[in-house]
């Protein structure tokens, strides 16, 4: 018995070592660096400095993340529901194909594409002008916070919809039929039968999207207007221009906390749904 346990330990040792060396060690090192001086003493100075310089950007990031996640949730659930419940099968199969396209386009390309699309004299406004809906003077640029949100939603929508459609399709078809022949409309079935059963998946999709949104550099750089900007940009700036790893790591810590905050909200919510609280 004993020997087989130690044998098993040896079996997982290489994997554990890899995880420790390349994942846990850098993670803890960056956290550690955020709250220590070069000499190794504990300090809050880096965090203070980060807040002093970048509190606007932190707020901006939180707003962008929340707005994107809310929009993502609404849109991806709507599309998934259309795909699963709509009686118009042929339109739906087309939709089911189109929504996946953004999955295969990198963020930087999306940002570039959207830049030419959303600018004041970009494709979108030109189309509005050509169709006579706007005059050149009335056009506004969507570059800036709204553009950032649009790009994130555009890019992440496919991923979220894919997860949510999968979860909806995995529900037993007869559960939905049972509700239908009791007289429930499709909308009611969506809210009362399907969504309560797939909240875990929706939560996972939103948290993974948050983490992605927090870490993408190209979008705030290309679509944003400079100030305020997102935390990721500030971190890159701290490192590239000043070699200031401490403040960069302090900003990293703030990013973790934002993600952790959302994760906590989600966990609390899902426990509440299970009636544990």
């Amino acid at each position, binding site marked *: 018995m004993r020997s087989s346990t130690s044998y098993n330990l040896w079996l997982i040792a290489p994997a554990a070592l890899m995880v420790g060396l390349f994942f846990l060690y850098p993670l803890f090192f960056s956290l550690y660096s955020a709250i220590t001086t070069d000499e190794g003493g504990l300090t809050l100075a880096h965090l203070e400095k980060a807040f002093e310089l970048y509190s606007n950007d932190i707020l901006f990031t939180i707003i962008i993340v929340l707005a994107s996640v809310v929009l993502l949730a609404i849109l991806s659930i709507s599309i998934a529901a259309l795909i699963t419940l709509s009686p118009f099968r042929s339109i739906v199969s087309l939709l089911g194909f189109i929504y996946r396209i953004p999955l295969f386009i990198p963020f930087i390309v999306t940002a570039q594409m959207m830049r030419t699309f959303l600018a004041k004299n970009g494709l979108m406004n030109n189309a509005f002008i050509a169709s006579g809906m706007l005059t050149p003077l009335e056009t506004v640029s969507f570059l800036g916070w709204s553009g950032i949100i649009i790009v994130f939603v555009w890019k992440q929508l496919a991923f979220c919809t894919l997860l949510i459609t999968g979860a909806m399709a995995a529900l*037993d078809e*007869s*559960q939905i*039929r*049972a*509700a*239908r*022949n*009791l*007289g*429930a*409309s499709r909308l*009611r079935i969506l809210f*009362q*039968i399907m969504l*309560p*059963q797939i909240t875990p998946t929706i939560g996972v999709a939103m948290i993974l999207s948050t983490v992605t949104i927090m870490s993408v550099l190209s979008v705030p750089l290309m679509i944003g207007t400079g100030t305020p900007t997102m935390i990721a940009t500030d971190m890159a700036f701290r490192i590239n221009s000043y070699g200031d790893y401490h403040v960069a790591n302090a900003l990293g810590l703030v990013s973790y906390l934002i993600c952790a905050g959302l994760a906590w909200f989600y966990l609390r919510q899902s426990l509440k*749904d299970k009636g544990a609280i």
Partner: protein
Amino acid sequence: MTHLLIENLHASYGDKVILNNINLAVAQGEMIALLGPSGCGKTTLLNALCGFMPIQSGCISIGDRKISTLAAEKRNITMVFQSYALWPHMTVSQNIGYGLKVQKVERAEIETRVNELLSIVNLEGLQDEKVTALSGGQRQRVALARALAIRPDVLVLDEPLSNLDAKVRLNVRHEIKALQKKLGFTSLIVTHDQEEALVMADRIAVLNQGQIEQLGTPEEIYHQPKTAFVADFMGANNKLTFSSLASLQQQISLSSLTQSKMQPSFSNKSTPYQVFFRSEDVGLTTLSQDHPKLHNETDAIRILGDVQQSAFLGGSYQISVRCGKHTIQADHHENLLEGTPVTLCVPAGALHIF
């Protein structure tokens, strides 16, 4: 009085015709069993009734209300599924009361009705239980109560007992039948267990390849099958073929044939005669064929053979007897050794000839 009427119903998946001209009239309060082999279209018929799949042509009506063009949620037909299809995020009483909630019935009234249903299906005290905490039999009773809660015009049950183990199945079977008698709901139940159909149904419709082969009371279906398929499906699975009427008459007199419940047209048909009978109707003896005792009964088919296999069934033995190119199953009170020569004797009254 006809309650549910299905006329000339056709339905298909793609090019594959699944239901081919189904006609069925169900009286108020009647329970019809749909019986047939796997893939014959039983579930498809229920789905078409409930509006879960489009039909190609035909008409379904309840009373004078034509429902075949209505959406599923407007038909007032509810289904009990083989997989129960309960909603795991709701309690027992939420599941049962859902249909009433959809109809915007008042809370207090829903509660009274749910309690009533809970006692009807013997689930008192479990109303706040999560459905995932229930046994299979309990779950199916919740599903039944849920389907009955809105007082549907027709209740359809798709193999409601197939996921239950044998003993629970017998219990729930009796409960459903008793409930149906008490509440008088009109229902269609799908099964591929002939015994279940015989016990539960007022009438049985035997389906084969998307068509109703025969519709009748359990006694009619059992004793007077109209086609070879029905005879075979209802357990008369011993089959002999005779190439001509003459060869059949060597065994059995024409008068007794016409007296028995055979097809009227049998005397002038060209295909070989197929004779079906049940293993319980086969008399088996180890006496030699010309033993005088065997000739007491004149109108019977007599066949010689030898024992191939013998299986203990509890009450009796099922003996497989090899007779030339046929193998015949016979019930017998004692075990016989392999190779024992035997004589089989099937009375004319037990034969179904096609």
